[in-house]
């Protein structure tokens, strides 16, 4: 609906739209010699009151000069309102969107336009430390719930005019701001095109978290593995941009979305690039081994101890058998008990405040574990297997990937319990085939472990091993082919 020249009509329409919205402030006042009526509207608490009082109200009442109604808009924009971002809008829907976003809108008699003045001032916590991607070395700052601050945190790290930003509003009711950031000279155009199309097609009531965006953009929605990467670290987001990836900053969310992805990027931590290559390569290798252990260890233990004890060296087999004496449950039952207990402890630890959660970890891990062994409910070997599996899953630096691996662990566990080692192999091949079938914006999920020849095998330099920074001369596959060369290394 277009804005009318008649101020009263506009006021009636706006008052009807915001009926019973107690936080929306509307004020009508006259300026000059009483001829010019102005109607102002904004939402309380999401605006910066100082800006409204000092740069709009004070100036309007103090600096106003008489002029005819049609010239009023120009005078306000050019001479009176001392705010950087001021724009003309002509529909009531734009007015509503602006007001709910934290802007102030001014209607004037005789004008079929309104003025939208940027007065956003959301309540927000300060920049704090990362909670889930903690590093020993490197920057400690993390994203916030305020999109503008998040964009600043990225911009501070990349002072390049090639860093582009497109804003979109998603969610019929929430109208959540989403910023699409990319390096113009590095991003693959086809990736950008698909992402924009996906964002434009999103049709739902609200985007309350970047997790919504992640799920709606994943091509293989049935997969337990994440096909987009989330991070709360600005340095990681900046690094992704410099690799030609696209970053989506969603308002009200302290994590940003990065795409495309491969399995490999989920094993990369920000810290990997802040310390010496040799030690970080070693740690990367450990992470990959840990991932395999996290999937296969419980299943392997069941397969070997139940179906193929002949594969275990005799001395070890005897020890395991000795620890199982007087245990009332089968090996499978024992593992199920311990894995469930571990899952419960993990959930309890996440939901509780951090001082209590560490207590739960200690109580659960040590006291309940040793009590269960002493009570003869489970054998010490199973406690070791479950604990090792759990620890290995925590070694992987991405929570979403760990969740996927947890589900895979249960598949391997189930098939091993039914078919022994053969079942474990079937489960592993099933998982591998599934992973190999996944793609993220045209890039195989398992790249560069497969199809590496597409980028002349250079992507191996940042996989299981991380080469020295000065040896990393090429950008990864995410970058458009013509921009893969790096001058002077990473």
């Amino acid at each position, binding site marked *: 609906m277009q804005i009318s020249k008649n101020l009263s009509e506009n006021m009636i329409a706006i008052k009807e739209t915001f009926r019973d919205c107690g936080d929306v402030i509307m004020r009508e006042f006259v300026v000059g010699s009483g001829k010019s009526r102005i109607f102002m509207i904004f939402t309380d608490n999401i605006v910066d009151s100082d800006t409204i009082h000092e740069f709009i109200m004070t100036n309007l009442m103090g600096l106003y000069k008489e002029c005819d109604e049609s010239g009023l808009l120009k005078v306000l924009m050019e001479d009176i309102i001392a705010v950087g971002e001021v724009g003309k809008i002509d529909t009531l829907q734009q007015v509503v969107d602006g007001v709910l976003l934290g802007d102030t809108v001014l209607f004037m008699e005789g004008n079929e336009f309104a003025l939208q003045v940027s007065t956003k001032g959301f309540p927000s916590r300060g920049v704090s430390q990362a909670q889930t991607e903690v590093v020993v070395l490197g920057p400690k700052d993390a994203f916030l719930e305020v999109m503008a601050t998040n964009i600043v945190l990225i911009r501070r790290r990349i002072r390049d005019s090639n860093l582009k930003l497109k804003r979109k509003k998603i969610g019929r009711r929430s109208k959540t701001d989403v910023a699409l950031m990319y390096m113009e000279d590095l991003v693959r155009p*086809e990736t950008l095109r698909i992402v924009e199309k996906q964002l434009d097609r999103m049709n739902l009531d609200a985007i309350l978290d970047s997790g919504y965006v992640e799920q709606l953009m994943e091509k293989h929605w049935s997969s337990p593995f994440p096909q987009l990467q989330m991070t709360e670290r600005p340095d990681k987001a900046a690094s992704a941009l410099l690799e030609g990836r696209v970053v989506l900053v969603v308002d009200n969310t302290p994590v940003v979305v990065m795409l495309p992805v491969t399995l490999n990027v989920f094993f990369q931590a920000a810290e990997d690039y802040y310390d010496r290559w040799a030690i970080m390569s070693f740690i990367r290798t450990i992470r990959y081994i840990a991932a395999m252990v996290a999937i296969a260890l419980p299943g392997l233990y069941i397969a070997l101890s139940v*179906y*193929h004890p*002949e*594969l*275990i*060296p*005799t001395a*070890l*087999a005897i020890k395991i058998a000795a620890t199982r004496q007087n245990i009332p449950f089968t090996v499978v039952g024992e593992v199920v008990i311990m894995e469930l207990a571990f899952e419960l402890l993990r959930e309890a630890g996440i939901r509780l405040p951090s001082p209590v959660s560490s207590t739960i970890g200690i109580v659960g891990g040590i006291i309940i574990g040793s009590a269960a062994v002493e009570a003869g409910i489970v054998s010490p070997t199973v406690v070791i297997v479950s604990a090792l599996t759990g620890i290995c899953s925590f070694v992987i630096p991405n929570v979403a990937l760990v969740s996927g691996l947890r589900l895979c662990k249960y598949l391997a566990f189930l098939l091993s319990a039914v*078919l*022994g*080692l*053969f079942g474990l*192999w*079937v489960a592993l*091949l*099933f998982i*591998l*085939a599934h992973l*190999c*079938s996944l*793609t993220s*914006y*045209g*890039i*195989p999920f*398992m790249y560069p*472990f*497969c*199809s590496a*020849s*597409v980028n002349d095998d250079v992507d191996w330099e940042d996989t299981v091993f991380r080469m020295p920074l000065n040896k990393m001369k090429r950008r990864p596959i995410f970058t458009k082919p013509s921009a893969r060369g790096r001058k002077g290394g990473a």
Partner: protein
Amino acid sequence: MFAENQKISVRQLQVLLLLYYFGTTALFLPSDAAVTGGNSGWIVTILWGVAASFLAVLFVYLGEKHPSYTAVEWYRRAFGRHLGTVLALGLGGKIIFDGAMELRLFCDIISSSMLPRTPQWLIIALTLFLCCLAASYGIECAARSGEILFFAVLIPLVVVLIFVAISTNYNRLLPVQMPAFSSLRESMPFFAPLLQGFMVFLFIFPSLEKRRHMKRRIWLTCLAATGLMTVLVFLSLAVYGTAALSEKLLPTLQMMERVSFSGIFLGRQDLFLLWFWMVTTFLYVTSLIFFGQELCSRVFQSKKNKRNLWLFLFIPLLFVVALLPKDMAEAYWLRIRVTPWLSGIFFVALPVLMLFIDTVKGRGGHE
């Protein structure tokens, strides 16, 4: 968007070909080589391997002449629409037979060595399900899996072979003798399964990207596979001697059982090395199912996105045919009797004939 184009690279083809060579054939071959070639069984392996590698080059030559053709178009072009369709359907039969026998032999080995009390149909059904799932993802998925699994399976195998080689006395192989022509002729049926992986050449060319130096690369791959196979036969002969080796059913696995690594967690690595054959069987049967789907899609001109519907034809057929033989011995006997004929027709006679027809009619053009 290189992942969305259903193409595989020549490197991926090389990996797949190498792994196809080591299907269940590698488990039986040393024994067969000893029966037919005696002490010179390893030389017989080299000769047949080299011959197979030249055949592979012929396929690549044909493929480069008609890069958009699969066997269906090749046959129809060379022999006319009707006869071509009949031959293509015959090839479909070979796909089902090869796949079913590979499944049956592998599942029999699993059943006898790992799960003696589990019903065999369950093992076959589960393996078949896994292969069908992978086939439904397309050949790209199989190729990517192959690239990853290649290192996971081949490195342990090579390590074990090195340890066997170190701990073996080679006196049994002496004196070295050249095989007689008669033994070469007799060994042909036993070495025919070596060609089983060549099925890939009949379907893969439209799915290949960047065919640089393809003839040389495929030839070298076949030679590498021949080399590895020869090592298996050579070591088996050295470890057991001709007479004992001829009596063994799965000498390759038994040979690996002999090696023990001090301090290693595993008591028996032979069972773990069955993982290698699980992988090769998985990839081989997956590819066969995919090729079968491709064949049916092209013969009956069904839409590409309906390709997976053909799985409903292949799953029951493979399952039933795999269950037909009474036991592993009968399955093996059946394979030795049937495979040489089918391989002779589809991998030797027809390609040579097609090359001849192409040459006479001046068809095809190199890229």
